[in-house]
């Protein structure tokens, strides 16, 4: 039995043992995604029906690789944080919850890293 008072349990990093880190990163990545996604939609409109050559030129054009990499990092970080909350809210079995949390984190990093590698490869040639 936990002999601590409710206040003692909530102090410091709180019951999540994570403090406000999750909350803060969700806001930070969300704010970053406002301009990044609007830029991406604008670019995607221009790329409607683009050929391979046109696409590769666009990816490597000055500024675009950096914005694309930032977009990918912010998307997968923000998305992973969001998925985590959904999983924690709806999956009640401890084993299934931990498994899904690990899979979602690994998948976000895998797809994020693969996308960044693709952006670099398209930028520096050798495709």
């Amino acid at each position, binding site marked *: 039995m936990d002999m601590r008072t409710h206040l003692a349990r909530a102090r410091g990093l709180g019951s999540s043992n994570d403090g406000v880190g999750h909350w803060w990163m969700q*806001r930070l990545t*969300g*704010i970053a*995604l*406002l301009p990044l*996604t*609007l830029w991406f*939609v604008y670019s*995607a*409109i*221009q790329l*409607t*029906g*683009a*050929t*391979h*050559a046109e*696409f*590769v030129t666009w*990816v490597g054009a000055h500024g675009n690789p950096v914005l*694309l990499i930032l977009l*990918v990092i912010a*998307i*997968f970080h923000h*998305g992973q944080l*969001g*998925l985590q909350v*959904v999983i924690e809210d709806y999956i009640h079995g401890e084993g299934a919850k931990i498994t899904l949390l690990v899979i979602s984190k690994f998948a976000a990093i895998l*797809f994020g890293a*693969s*996308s960044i590698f*693709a*952006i670099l*490869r*398209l930028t520096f040639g050798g*495709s």
Partner: protein
Amino acid sequence: MAAQNRPLSPHLQIYKKQITSVMSILHRMTGIALMFGAVVLSYWLISATYGPESFQTAQAMLGSWFGRLVLFGLTFSLFYHLGNGVRHLGWDFGMGFELSQVRSTGIAVVVFSVVLTLLTWFAGYAMIGGA
């Protein structure tokens, strides 16, 4: 307050649908859809590294009627999640908590996402001459 007497969350089965609750769950659903969209973005980028043929395959798949339907849904999801995300940021600053404001900002987000989605697709079709 004793731990046993805490207020319960509403029972969804008998809970009357309201703009607040519907928009809240839509925020989650569009978020999950956008995570799928992020994987599509990954596929799009990676397909180009395998050369013109595989990129063409990706373009044909995304350009098919089913691909366009998915992309249309993702466009709406993006603008909805973005607009409603800004609404959430407002709440984080303690703004817009009156019931009337919650309703009006909610309607504004829905109008914003529908208009921006249609504008994006008009612009996209204009790029390829309406094909």
